[in-house]
Structures are given as structure tokens and as C-alpha cells.
């Protein structure tokens, strides 16, 4: 793993430097389990520009984490299999890359951080070892240089007394600190794209804010593309540029952050917004979307949301499901009656 890995990666066939850092086109993923085939991802598409933050919003079990793992190529298969679609990094379809090169793209170009940093960090190795490992393996650095770089990284993510803490183990760090270590690990090799799979869900609110601020600052400095996967509407509002809302393995609405909050064009998004407790509505009964998301092994025909949808009519229940209607040049919504939903405002 000599340092010339960047040279090799820049020479990838079909690489177009000014193409988007990450484009996902009609991604299909299914899980072949004992009780049937679960269609976790049914044609998800989105893209993200350098310096932009793309949020993927949805309840747990809607396929957002699977999408992220598919992009990174770390799906456990079996049981998971990518059965369709393309994942383009600067025009290069990662699905077609041989594993050796795909592995180089990971960490060097596209990095990822996970939700529960305690279980995501190896408990029996020091934080320093797990950071230095990246430099020793990808950049072929010596043990001392790699350790020095590790300390620098810990400083970068504002971990106090980095020199001493580098020899500590993950369980000796607090929740927030651990998440900072995860971020340090992800940014070690200056990736162009960072995928954050529910980075702050396991943290309490105050630490959550610090982490999101750190992410924003680092993104700004490095003009990095950030894909933020979460189910927390609050976090999305103040960080994301564009939002894709997912339900039952499909993107059902995609728009700029202000448009969505201002006028959601899909009943599900509308329901989500209404379920956020707001100060100005104090004392009123909170409205929640009735029912539960469908099991991915038998997704209802037509629009997957129809059983729980106020606006649902017969057409919503027939196949093929609603396409992504163009609400505005920069917005889409997969609902036959998006006008009524949007209009209700």
C-alpha cells in the first residue's frame, strides 16, 4: 500500500474530476432470509455535490442504513445482495470496480461514521492503534509517523490531551469523545465524501450539537460532500442542504430543506413534520402517523404508504406505484395527490 495510492485512484478508468463526487442511480438491494426475500432498497436515487450536505430521512427499517452500506460496499452478503442500479464516484461505477480497487476507494475517497461509537470501535485495541492503522496500511507510514498523525487527528477533532489519550481504549472515552474519534478516523485520509449513519442518535442533545458543529466546520474546511442519514427532523433542519425522504425502501420526496419544512409535498413527510412537538402548539394533542411501517418482505402494492395515508384513494393502491412527480424544477414527490398535500398549507 504505497503512497502512490492517490495516483492510482486518480487514474481510475472513466474518472471525470468535475463529475459529482457521489451519484446513486436506481439502487436495488434485497435480503434473502429464511422467511422470504426482503426488498430493503427499491430504486433509490440521489446525488451530492462537493461541500453540500444531503440528508436521507426516514424511520428505522426504511432501508437508509442499507443504502449507506451498499455505497461503501460493506454489505454482509449473504444475506444482502445488490440487484440493480449504479453508484457513481466522479462518473466511475463502484459496483463494477474489482474489490482491490473498491477497497482503495473506501476511506481514501468515501468514508463513513456509525451510530454507536462504542460498539463501532474495536474494544481491545487502543484508539491510537485503530487510527494509526489507516496510515500504516493505506499510506505505508512507519509506526511512529502514523502515531504522530493519529495525535494530530485527535487534536483536529478537539479531543483534549490527545498525546496521552491516544493510548487509551474506546471504553475510556465518553459518548461524545468516542464519536469524535470516529470522525477523526473517517477523515484521516481526506475523503471527498463522508457518509454519517445516524452519527448523533446515541448522544444527548448538548453533545449532539457539538458533534454536528464539528462536522459542519470540517466539511467547510475540506469542501467535503456529506451524506447525513437520520430519523431526527430537528438535526436535519439546521444542517442539511437537500433532503431525500425514504419510506419502505424508496425515496418518496426530495427537495431543498426550506421547501420541505415550508410545504411538504408528500403525506408521509407532512405526517413526520406534524409529529414534531413545537413550542407554539403547546397543550395540543400531538398528532402521530397511525400504524407501523410495512415489513420489507411484503410491501403493499402501489404506494407503500397507502394503508397509513389520509389522502389515499384507489389509484394509490394499484401497481405501478406513484412515480416521482416534478413538483418544481428542484423538487419531486412520489404522490399522485401531491398538489392537495402541498395545497393544504
Amino acid at each position: 500500500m504505497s503512497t502512490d495510492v492517490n495516483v492510482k485512484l486518480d487514474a481510475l478508468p472513466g474518472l471525470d474530476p468535475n463529475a459529482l463526487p457521489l451519484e446513486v442511480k436506481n439502487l436495488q438491494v434485497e435480503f434473502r432470509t429464511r422467511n422470504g426475500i426482503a426488498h430493503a432498497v427499491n430504486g433509490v436515487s440521489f446525488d451530492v455535490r462537493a461541500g453540500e450536505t444531503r440528508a436521507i430521512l426516514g424511520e428505522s427499517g426504511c432501508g437508509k442504513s442499507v443504502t449507506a452500506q451498499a455505497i461503501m460496499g460493506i454489505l454482509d452478503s449473504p444475506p444482502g445482495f445488490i440487484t440493480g442500479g449504479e453508484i457513481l464516484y466522479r462518473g466511475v461505477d463502484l459496483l463494477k470496480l474489482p474489490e482491490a480497487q473498491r477497497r482503495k476507494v473506501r476511506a481514501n475517497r468515501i468514508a463513513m461514521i456509525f451510530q454507536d461509537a462504542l460498539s463501532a470501535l474495536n474494544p481491545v485495541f487502543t484508539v491510537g492503534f485503530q487510527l494509526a492503522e489507516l496510515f500504516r496500511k493505506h499510506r505505508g507510514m512507519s509506526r511512529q509517523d502514523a502515531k504522530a498523525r493519529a495525535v494530530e487527528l485527535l487534536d483536529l477533532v478537539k479531543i483534549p490531551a490527545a498525546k496521552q489519550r491516544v493510548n487509551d481504549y474506546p471504553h475510556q472515552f465518553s459518548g461524545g469523545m468516542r464519536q469524535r474519534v470516529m470522525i477523526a478516523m473517517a477523515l484521516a485520509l481526506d475523503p471527498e465524501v463522508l457518509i454519517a449513519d445516524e452519527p448523533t442518535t446515541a448522544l444527548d442533545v448538548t453533545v449532539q450539537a457539538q458533534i454536528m458543529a464539528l462536522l459542519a466546520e470540517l466539511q467547510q474546511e475540506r469542501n467535503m460532500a456529506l451524506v447525513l442519514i437520520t430519523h431526527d427532523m430537528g438535526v436535519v433542519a439546521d444542517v442539511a442542504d437537500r433532503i431525500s425522504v425514504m419510506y419502505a425502501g424508496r425515496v418518496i420526496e426530495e427537495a431543498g430543506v426550506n421547501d420541505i419544512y415550508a410545504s411538504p409535498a408528500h403525506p408521509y413527510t407532512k405526517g413526520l413534520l406534524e409529529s414534531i412537538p413545537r413550542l407554539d402548539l403547546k397543550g395540543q394533542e400531538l398528532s402521530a402517523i397511525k400504524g407501523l411501517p410495512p415489513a420489507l418482505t411484503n410491501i403493499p402494492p402501489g404506494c407503500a404508504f397507502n394503508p397509513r395515508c389520509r389522502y389515499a384513494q384507489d389509484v394509490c393502491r394499484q401497481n405501478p406505484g406513484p412515480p416521482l412527480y416534478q413538483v418544481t424544477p428542484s423538487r419531486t414527490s412520489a404522490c399522485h395527490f401531491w398538489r392537495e398535500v402541498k395545497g393544504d398549507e
Partner: protein
Amino acid sequence: MGRYVIRRLLQFIPTVLGTMFLLHYITSLAIQFSGNPVRAMFGDRTPSPAQLQALTERLGYGDPCLSRKGDPCLWRVAADGNGWLGTSLEPGLFFDRLGNIFFRFDFGINLRQREVTDLVADAIPFTLKLLVIAIIFEAVVGIAAGVLAGLRGGSFLDYMVKISTVFIISVPIFVLGVVVREFVGVKFGNVLRGQDWVPDLISAGIFTPGFKADYPFASLIIPGMVLGAVSLATTARLTRTSIMENIRADYVRTAKAKGLTNKRVIGVHTLRNSLIPVITFLGVDIGAAMAGAVVTETIFNVPGIGRLVTFSARSGESSVVVGVVTMLVLVVLIANLLVDLLYAVLDPRIRYE
């Protein structure tokens, strides 16, 4: 950590004392109920009372409490009348043994008037060699099989390992031992000895039906493998389960996300975590193995500790049984302590205050 070790060492004392008293009382009961073991040395001939008495005295079976059924031999009437604290009693056979073993390191003699310490000194090298071979064989093959089966969960290989390990565990060791000795040691050995291209070390050294003085290490390889076989099965099962659990852990996904090669993800990250329960099992197993190899030692004629204590138990040599088994218990306790400490080294999350 230091305080923990000291606390554990202090806990040894009641345990070892308890074991020693248990063994002492059991062997004394044996003599009280089954009669003087010295009598058996004369076989069918009935020795003159004088001779039997002299020999009984010399071998330490003369204590009067040994002739009273149920007497725990803790106290005895002092010969000169004035005993401890003004009573007429003085510390009995048990305290003599305690004093001898722990203060004078004198474990007494067996029926053939040989020092128990010499008996153990003769036996330990063989048991240790057998142990080392068994542990290496068990660890290497066991972990390899377990890892392979664990990684390819559900595959044919996994099924093969699962079935073969369960089968080995359920075959009683003495059946395995006898079959291996007869077929591998004798039959196959004779075939090998027939061919002259096979070097002597292998044909005469390894494939022998039992221990041979002129190939002290080679002739223990097969007995060691038989002894290790049962624990090999357990190690493989343990490793397999542990790998299957750790393979799903989040940190493995992180390692993959860090673009590390599959070999490193498995070899370094997953293995390091999965081996913790396996190593603790091996540690405990070593302690127990010191005396556990009774059957293997008997079948392959290995003059080890297991066999020494078994034969002494049968011929009623209580000094050997009490002395050697107490030492073994001490070894097991120390082995278990070391394993717990090793556990803390292997897994930094474990803290002992």
C-alpha cells in the same frame, strides 16, 4: 490489580485447607474401613505380627486413630500425657501432615518407602510433556477448525466441523485410546516399520503403542493427541461460536469501512476478540489436565501424575493421595488465577479492583 491478586491468594488458603482435610478424612476413612494397606504387601502369605507392626509404624499408618472408625484424626492422646493448653490432647495426624507438607515440604513415603516428592519428581516430566503436546495440538487444530467453520457459517465445512467435534466429544476417552493404540500404534506402526524408507524417528518413535524411553518426546505425540482430542473438540466449538458472534459486531463493519483487506479484518480485528473465551478455556483446561490424563496415561503406559495417584488410591497409600492431589488442587487454583489475570490483559474492559 495488586489488591485483587492478594485477595485471590488469600482465598486459596481456605480452599486448599478444605481440600486437604477432605482428602485426609477420605483416606483415613478408607484405612479405618478397609484395613491396613500394608497387609496387602504380603499377598497370600500371612506375615508375623511383629513384622506387620514394624512396617506399619515405618510407613506412617501406625497412628491409633486409624483404627477407630469415623475418627477424623484431628487430635490424639499425647504420649506423655501433657498435650496442648493443659488438655491431654495434641494435634493429630492431620496437623502433622499439614506441618510436614507446608513447613518441611515432607510429603511422607509410599508403601514402597519411596519419598512422595521423588515419586512426583519422576512423574512430572512425563505429564508435562504429554500436556504440552496435547495443548499445542488442541490449540492449533482446534482454533483453525473453529475459525474456518465460524467464517463459513452454514457451509459444508462448518457442518463437517460441527459433526466431527460432537462425535469426538461423545466417544469415551478409553475407547478412543484403546482403538488408537491398537490400530495406529501397533497395526499401522508395524506397516511403517516394514518400510525401510520411513525414518526411524517416525516409524519407531511416533507410531508406537505407548511411551518409549528411547524416544521420550516422539512416543508421547500420539498419546498427547488422544488426550488433546476431546478438548480439541471443545475448543473448535467454542471458537466457532465466538467467531460467528464477533463477525456480526459493529467494529468489524468499521474495519471494513476503513478499507482494510479481508485478511486483516478477520485476522486482526475479529480473531483478537473471538479468542478471548477460547484462551480462558485453554487456561482452565491446562490446570485440570495436570491430573486428568488418568486414562490416557494408563492406556499408553505413560508414568505420569494421573496414573501415580490412581494406583496409590487403590493400594491405599494415603500420604501420596493427600500430598499429590493437594498439590494438584493448588496448581489448578493458580492456573485459574493466571487465567483471570490473562483475561484482564486480553480484554482491557475488564478491571479488577
